[in-house]
């Protein structure tokens, strides 16, 4: 059974068809929630970020150019929102308290504890050691399979800069994850 394309649904949603928009939300919310959770390290924050991103998309859809892929557009809105949240978090944290701050997150989140394997939690902890920009590029590339070109589009930087960030993230993570062997 063929499904209507994202492009068609986005045009309809732009004209005020909220049922078309609901189909788009259902189609993409799981993937975007995964992305936001990987970027923010918190399911609750991720749900807020994805919700805000979709509401923002609904308001902006009348101006959305349908030649851009809706999914790339949503990746961009969610990634930007997460980056802003991560950047806002950092100056308020005392450097020496960061590891302790991140630990109770896992303890206090039974959902996450139940659904994440030990390995994935270890990776999530290691991701906390990256800058927000490196984390975004690495997660988009390795966990969501975006091309360098798509990541450059999503994060508004050059492909060269994307490569640099991913390289540095890999170098840090190979060391950090190697230490857990």
């Amino acid at each position: 059974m063929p499904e209507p394309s994202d492009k068609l649904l986005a045009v309809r949603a732009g004209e005020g068809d909220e049922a078309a928009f609901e189909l788009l939300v259902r189609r993409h919310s799981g993937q975007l929630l995964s992305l936001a959770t990987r970027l923010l390290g918190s399911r609750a924050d991720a749900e807020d970020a994805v919700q805000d991103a979709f509401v923002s998309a609904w308001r902006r859809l009348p101006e959305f150019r349908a030649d851009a892929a809706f999914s790339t557009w949503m990746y961009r809105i969610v990634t930007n929102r997460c980056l802003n949240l991560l950047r806002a978090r950092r100056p308020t944290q005392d450097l020496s308290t960061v590891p302790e701050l991140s630990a109770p997150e896992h303890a206090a989140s039974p959902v996450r504890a139940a659904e994440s394997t030990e390995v994935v939690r270890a990776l999530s902890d290691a991701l906390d050691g990256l800058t927000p920009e490196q984390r975004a590029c690495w997660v988009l590339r390795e966990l969501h399979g975006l091309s360098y070109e798509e990541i450059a589009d999503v994060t508004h930087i050059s492909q060269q800069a994307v490569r640099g960030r991913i390289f540095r993230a890999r170098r840090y993570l190979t060391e950090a994850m190697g230490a857990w062997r």
Partner: protein
Amino acid sequence: MAVGMNPGPPGDGPDRDHETTHPRPQHTPDPTSQVPETTPRPDAGAGSEPGSRSDAVPDDLPETDPEGAEEDEILLCGRSLSAVWEAEEADEHTTGCPYCREALTGLGVLDRYVREARAEREPPAEAVTARVMNLVRTELRPGRMLPLGEPVDDAWIAEVAAAKVFRETAESLPGVFAGSCKVMPIDPAAARRSLLPGGPRYRGPMRVALELTAALDWTVPELASLVRQLIADAARDAVGMDIVEIDVSVVDVLGDDLGDALGGEPPYSDETRERRER
């Protein structure tokens, strides 16, 4: 793990859009330093055993190199670490080179974690979807107000509601999806004015502009003709609207990837057309 890989605060080269003092649990020697280490220490890669690597850049190189490649490392075999990691497949050199193999082994450890993380199920999103749609329904965009029936009736319908009827009418045909559907006064000036919030409402003949995505077994003329007729009927009988012009355009083909993959049957056979018209 190669001894030359100091994971130290991974400075971010090409742009200056963030703080450079990044917290580094366990690895940062001086967490209060304002100038993070951005390159591996020279002494760390000085060994000669496989897996050691020399450092390509001096410690004092600024981390915001515009090219973004300032932190790459050159392995003792001469290849750069980033090139080895980015290569899709191992070549003849990589296969036989202990330095390249060591670099790839380091990445392989990470790959195990990546595979597990990718295999994780997507989190349930029903709650988020419901919250989003509750908010969206407080911010509906109904479009123009369009006249129904006779002037004396003073009855109106939102464009979004009329478009919904016309899209559903078109989609009652198999292999057809409706995209953009605009319903507006046939007079262009009145159509523009009718978009203004709080402006005078226009009463008069209307036109519909509908875009379709259709399966390959429709021909454009037969589909357009059929949809025009169905919409004219629906406008008269179901909505009660004076529609005098109906533009139908087929802007996309439904499932063309599938059609190509199957090798494609003759799409416009007489048999197909006959069946559609029954």
